[in-house]
């Protein structure tokens, strides 16, 4: 498991209520170094950098190394992103290449 700590950045969106003030905990489930896994991690980092002002933690869990962890978060698809905090827990599957859908899934954009 590797953890990426976001850098504290000056926020441009202080007035946006969707932007959290507390630190987010995100968990990305992957299976080895597959292209989809790598793409997903890169996409996630880009989105977080742009949206979360560095107040986030990304845990990457490799199920090939820790298969027993797949059960707790009910993982089926790879890659799967889980928003552990803030609640409620959100689940996004795929390589996160569709940024809009990721933002919707994380409640960073209103659903339309």
């Amino acid at each position, binding site marked *: 498991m590797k953890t990426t700590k976001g850098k504290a950045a000056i926020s441009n969106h202080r007035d946006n209520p969707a932007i959290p003030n507390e630190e987010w905990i995100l968990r990305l489930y992957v299976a080895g170094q597959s292209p989809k896994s790598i793409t997903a991690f890169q996409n996630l980092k880009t989105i977080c950098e742009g949206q979360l002002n560095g107040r986030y933690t990304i845990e990457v869990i490799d199920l090939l190394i820790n298969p027993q962890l*797949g059960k707790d978060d009910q993982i*089926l698809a790879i890659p799967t992103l889980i928003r552990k905090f803030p609640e409620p827990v959100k689940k996004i599957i795929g390589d996160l290449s569709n940024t809009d859908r990721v933002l919707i*899934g994380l409640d960073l954009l209103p659903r339309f």
Partner: protein
Amino acid sequence: MSKNKMQVQTQSLPKSPTGIKGLDEITGGGLPKGRPTLVCGNAGCGKTLLAMEFLVRGAIEFNEPGVFMAFEETENELTTNVASLGFNLEDLTEKKMILIEHVHIERSEIEEAGEYDLEGLLIRINFAIDSIGAKRVVLDTIESLFGGLPNVLILRAELRRLFRFLKEKGVTVIITGERGDEMLTRQGLEEYVSDCVIVLDHRVTEQASTRRLRIVKYRGSSHGTNEYPFLIDETGFSVLPITSVGLTHTVSTERISSGIPRLDTMLSGKGYFRGSSILASGTAGTGKSSLAAHLTFAACKRKERVLYFALEESPSQIIRNMRSIGINQEQWVKSGLLRFHSNRPTFIGLESYLTMIHKAILDFKPEVVIVDPISSFIVGANEFEAKSMIMRLVDFLKMNNITGFFTALTGVGSEMEGLKVNVSSLIDTWLLLRDIEIGGERNRGLYILKSRGMAHSNQIREFILTDHGVELRDVYVGPDGVLTGSARTAKEAVEDSEKLLRKQEIERKQLALERKRKALDYKIKELQDEFEAESLEALKAISIDTELSKNFLQLQRDQAVSRKADTDQKHTSLK
């Protein structure tokens, strides 16, 4: 499941025995080993139970651990649901023989953002299999994925990968699927599973629900192609090919009284065998329940327990009716030796009724079980199920050495053996009650159609219900056929008077003969007397004659002497 059978099957196609009663027989040894089997059917037809029993039996009987991937129910729900079938999943889980993993999938909780695969599911299944060394896997039901994941193209490709993975893993898999309109399953799962497909069906005909199982396909193996009825009761799932009923029970040679002395006499003097199954069949009002009441009475008197399943009457009605023939059953109910169960099987369905019977028997532990009448099981077109059910009941009773007494209502005008469900092969002693209509009267006749293992009477007896119970009487068998009732009485009266007349005639003749002999004797005596008198006289005359001739000779000699005559030669020689 015999071992020989398994070895034979192993040569053609390796099979994984299910341990489910009857299923191994019709599949010729079980499901294809190391391959997936599809079990599909409508909601509530027992797919999950079949799959679960496959794992539980595998764990208990064949020492093969199993993984249950539950897509619809949680671990707790499953454990609770199958506990009613007597499966202790908690225990098996603790022993690491069974692993249940709930796979939760909810469309509304998932956002799809880009490319993905189902590697996560594969990893979880793989991990579950490896963690207990599973040989059997159940996916129940994988179709839930179609509801939870939006991208069907990815899903289908991934399912194909999943089944390939499971085959490589060498585990025997059951995949359950909901029955579709056009296809066997809604999502066409049969496309992935080409080895064995079993269809379960739960249908309601004439208000009676029946479950059926059919093997649609079994690649590389012969299999039964019929629809087989199956039951789910507290011993689990059981498919009912006729041959699957175990014939391993030991039989008793002990005899028990039928409660009717004359009937005992007909049954080679001792009554029924303990643990045998007895059927009393007949048209309405022939006294079937009365025979049952007598058996009840006799058993309770011996301090044995009797469980009475009344399918058509309430207990109080039976007690009242039997009181009219002088049998008081109430006392036994009060003392706890007799227990009634009254309800119609159509009310709860055959399976549930059988389950209820099993429970009641296990709870009460009776020596005698009465089912009155067994024909109530047959509603509409469920004869086959009814027979299967009766067979299972008979088998269950025999296994426990419980005497079973069944009554059966046969239709008026039908053949005497025309019991709708032919259960004769299951029955040890069959009493047939018949109406005999002669001379504007309807009387009851009883005879023993068969009674295994004893030399029984082959005669018809007239069956009379009196206020002190059932009485059996000899029927009049004469040139006019069998006579019963008042015809018999009349015929007997005629015979009696004829007999009397004949007796008098004989006496008269004997008397005449006597008289004749006496007369003869008298005559003989008379003649004898006469003869004696005559012979006496004759003797007298003879003696006189002799005397006279003597005197005459003397006279001659005297004269000669006096005349000095010479002695004549002739006379000299006379000297």
